[in-house]
């Protein structure tokens, strides 16, 4: 077996798959951090406040936006997947994949707008 340049991936469903996987991975990596920050409430409320103040900084804001984006992408991607597997739809799957990304983007943008 040998890896050759595979271009057999340039289609919407593959993009949906990789987006879902990367967002899931991103969330899984972020989550421990998130939990740790929240646990500060118990051990060191002052530091928690310090962190929360940091969210004012625009770089951090961007990161926050990214995380919400990940969550939205992943959730809609997951719902898309379950619809695709369990509801016997066939043809419209590609549109579904595309709209999932679109909707999640919308929500994330909404969040960003509200935040500023």
């Amino acid at each position: 077996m040998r890896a050759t340049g595979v271009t057999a991936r340039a289609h919407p469903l593959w993009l949906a798959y990789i987006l879902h996987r990367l967002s899931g991975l991103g969330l899984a990596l972020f989550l421990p951090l998130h939990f740790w920050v929240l646990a500060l409430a118990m051990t060191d409320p002052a530091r928690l406040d310090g962190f929360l103040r940091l969210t004012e900084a625009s770089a951090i804001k961007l990161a926050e936006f990214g995380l919400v984006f990940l969550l939205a992408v992943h959730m809609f991607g997951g719902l898309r997947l379950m619809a695709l597997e369990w509801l016997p739809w066939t043809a419209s799957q590609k549109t579904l994949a595309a709209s999932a990304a679109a909707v999640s983007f919308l929500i994330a943008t909404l969040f960003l707008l509200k935040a500023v």
Partner: protein
Amino acid sequence: MTQETLKVTIDRGPDTAHVQTVFDVPAYTNQTVLDVVSWVQQNADPTLSYRYACRVGMCGSCAMMVNGVPRWTCRTHISKVLRGNAVTIAPLRNLPVIKDLAVDMDPFFDKWVAAEGVHHGALTRDDPIAPVDTSTAARAVADAGIECINCSVCYAACDTVTANDDYLGPAALQRAWTLLNDAKDDGRAAILDAVSDKGGCHNCHSIGSCTTYCPNDLDPMSAIAGLKRETAKSLFQRWR
């Protein structure tokens, strides 16, 4: 008019070192990818290995990676895949290379059998042929996948197959789904067990490359989704 030539790059194996050879092949009006490969073997490099049989898209033995995309080569006109006047041809992905462009398809067929892709039934040659109502929904589902020629194009397209040796792959699972919907088949329990095993349908991430690249316009992705539904249902039935 001077004869146009094609720049054909071919992967040589089975050595893991990534060796490629470039050939100049004369272009002709009616020329498939298989014709190009054949020209090289017949005229330029007699040691080039590849496989074909029917030359009309019925046997499924000529599939290769053409510019990184799995295709049946006997039914792919070269003009469809040329980039400028160049094309790269490699052995089918996800299967062990025997030599050059010929792969060992045994793993593909072993999985076909492991997915219970074999008729189950108690009727014999002494029984009359059972009438089958072809207007049922189940028959339509069974018919949808029946024309698979086991060419392995979908198997080569699937990233999950690449990543997970145990995964039965789209064609084998589609065959299982066809049988599950075949009124003549008695193997329901065996099939559901086989496709719920560790290499079973639940490993599929609905990447959809199988459906996108099947040269026969079949839809293994939806067939696998069908298996996921049926296995889930049977789980609930067992819990009840």
